[in-house]
């Protein structure tokens, strides 16, 4: 099993005083490949990161970088023909004394894994419209998770569903519980989605582009809600987004991904104010800013994201990288270089190679 060198042991001293010394969830060298007729797509190719209790880990990157697949890999719900080909996903047990378990060692469809899904780790993701079935009331779909993971009666589950809806700020939860998803606005749907994810009081919430389809004012509401709930329940959150603004506002730690690889990670402030990887630097420069002077041009990154089948050799970013070293970057994949225990970058410009 390939090991990534980034953080060799989960116990470390964090920069921004993590609430716990050992990570709640530790992903190591995760590889998820899609074997298609056209070739193998290495959607996630050796990604490692840690999620600490009560904190928010932001995973950012453009389309096709593998951030969503990483999230699904954690839950073990990657669609065919995708398959986790390697890595470890260590989940700290509820009781501190019990050893952490490697989720990838559990049978995918086994009861243990299913008990973790929804109960321990919940998922909220984009397209709140499509993320619900139209054929069942939202109450039904929330209660389902409750009934699945507890011995609650139908009535109790329903009461819990109403309570959850109230908690996420859905007005008239007693009435709404019997409505269908299409009867709700986008913002409400995302709240309901949140209620559903929180139904079993999970420790970890994976929010996959939770606000992408929403308008800004609604996005603001939902992000606020997410922050509130996290605070109230001490949730750990993995926030997956392409929106650097959202990451800046929400995340404590950030992983930047590009074509299936984590190119840089570190505390949010450092990522934004001291980016190391040329991709992170360029990405930040190219973001249009509401604070910009009107009609100012943006810095750009040359070229476009390669097609997943035409993944460049060496460092996948090298064709677009202004600092690419000929004969090195286009040949060899750069190793992950740990600058500090909580700060790493995959680039030949740093570490031994430089």
């Amino acid at each position, binding site marked *: 099993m390939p090991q990534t060198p980034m953080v060799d042991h989960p116990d470390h001293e964090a920069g921004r005083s993590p609430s716990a010394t050992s990570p709640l969830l530790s992903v190591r060298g995760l590889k998820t490949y899609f074997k298609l007729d056209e070739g193998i797509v290495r959607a996630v190719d050796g990604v490692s990161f840690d999620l600490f209790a009560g904190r928010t880990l932001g995973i950012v990157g453009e*389309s096709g970088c593998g951030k969503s697949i990483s999230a699904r890999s954690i839950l073990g719900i990657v669609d065919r023909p995708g398959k986790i080909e390697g890595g470890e996903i260590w989940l700290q047990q509820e009781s501190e004394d019990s050893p952490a378990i490697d989720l990838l060692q559990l049978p995918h469809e086994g009861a243990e894994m299913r008990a973790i899904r929804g109960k321990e780790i919940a998922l909220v993701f984009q397209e709140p419209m499509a993320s619900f079935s139209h054929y069942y009331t939202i109450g039904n779909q929330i209660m389902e998770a409750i009934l699945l993971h507890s011995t609650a009666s139908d009535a109790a589950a329903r009461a819990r569903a109403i309570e959850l809806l109230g908690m996420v700020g859905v007005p008239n939860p007693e009435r709404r519980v019997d409505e269908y998803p299409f009867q709700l606005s986008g913002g409400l749907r995302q709240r309901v989605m949140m209620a559903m994810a929180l139904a079993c009081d999970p420790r970890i919430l994976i929010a996959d582009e939770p606000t992408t389809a929403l308008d800004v004012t609604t996005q603001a509401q939902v992000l606020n809600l997410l922050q509130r709930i996290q605070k109230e329940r001490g949730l750990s959150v993995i926030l997956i987004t392409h929106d650097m603004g959202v990451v*800046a506002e929400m995340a404590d730690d950030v992983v930047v991904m590009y074509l299936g690889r984590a190119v840089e990670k570190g505390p949010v402030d450092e990522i934004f104010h001291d980016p190391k990887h040329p991709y992170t630097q360029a990405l930040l420069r190219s973001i249009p800013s*509401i604070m910009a002077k009107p009609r100012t041009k943006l810095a750009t990154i040359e070229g*476009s994201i390669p097609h997943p089948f035409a993944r460049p050799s060496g460092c996948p970013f090298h064709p677009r990288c202004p600092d690419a070293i000929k004969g090195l970057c286009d040949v060899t994949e750069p190793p992950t270089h740990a600058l500090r225990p909580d700060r790493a970058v995959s680039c030949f410009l740093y570490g031994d190679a430089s």
Partner: protein
Amino acid sequence: MTLLEVKGLKKYFPIRKGLLRKVVGHVKAVDDVSFSVKRGETLALVGESGCGKTTVSRCIMRALDPSAGEVNFTLDGRTTDLATLDGKGLKPFRRHLQMVFQDPFSSLNPRMMVGDLIGEPLLINGMSDAAERRKRVRELLDVVQLPVEYMNRFPHAFSGGQRQRIGIARALALNPSLIVADEPVSALDVSVQAQIINLLLDLQDQLGLTYLFVAHDLSVVKHVSDRVAVMYVGQLVEIASTEDLFHRPKHPYTEALLSAVPKPDPRAKTERIILQREVADAANPPSGCAFHPRCAHATDLCKQQRPALVDLGQGHQVRCHHAHELDLKGVGSLA
């Protein structure tokens, strides 16, 4: 010099009910919208989904027939109300009004090569000489910074950014005066989005284009537009120069909108204004100011009386009873 003037534009969609499908009401998708666009400038039309901004652009393009109002288009010194023209009367104006879509390829024939796609509007408008057409297509590809070899490729071979460039080339083929760009970069990745924004800015400088830029992303709008019009539930609530609107908003909705945009800087700890409740229903808008149920500053007056669009000077118009009294926060400037 005004190129486009929209006056009192309305678009109502009937709501039918019952056995005989009687019209029992209207969705006022666009309700009395007026603005003008000067030649060579960019006016951004912003607002959240369902606010009517796309309906406005469709009415201008006459993909929809306005229920009322004028769409005055000035060409060679002569002003014509497009809203009154029929299909035949519109035809000479079509080439002067072009559209750039979110994804131009979803509406284009995947079996046509790029050269033919770009050349199609030329052919339709009478450029029958194939060699001449190819020459023009080359020029256009050059303008949008695409290699000329791409002419002989099929659309599916292109990335999102390249497709958008092809869409822009197609729109430019007939030297239009006005380009209505409907969310032209919202489907693109950040790194590519910047390229297209820059391209649009460059083209405007080079070709003297006029843009009506329909978008929801205020950051993008800040980069491209000269003036910004904000819509809420079918109405214009504020229109001003970009600088004024972003830094000195006069409408509480604009203020909320600006504050809600996440800033890509973990140190910029601005206070978000969280609007309560939902966007009003255009089929059943609230009395008075449509925004009042969500407005922190709303008074009884706001509930009863619909505010008019008033000019605060320098073309800064706002639809708020309390525009003069309120001290609203805009976004800070980058240092």
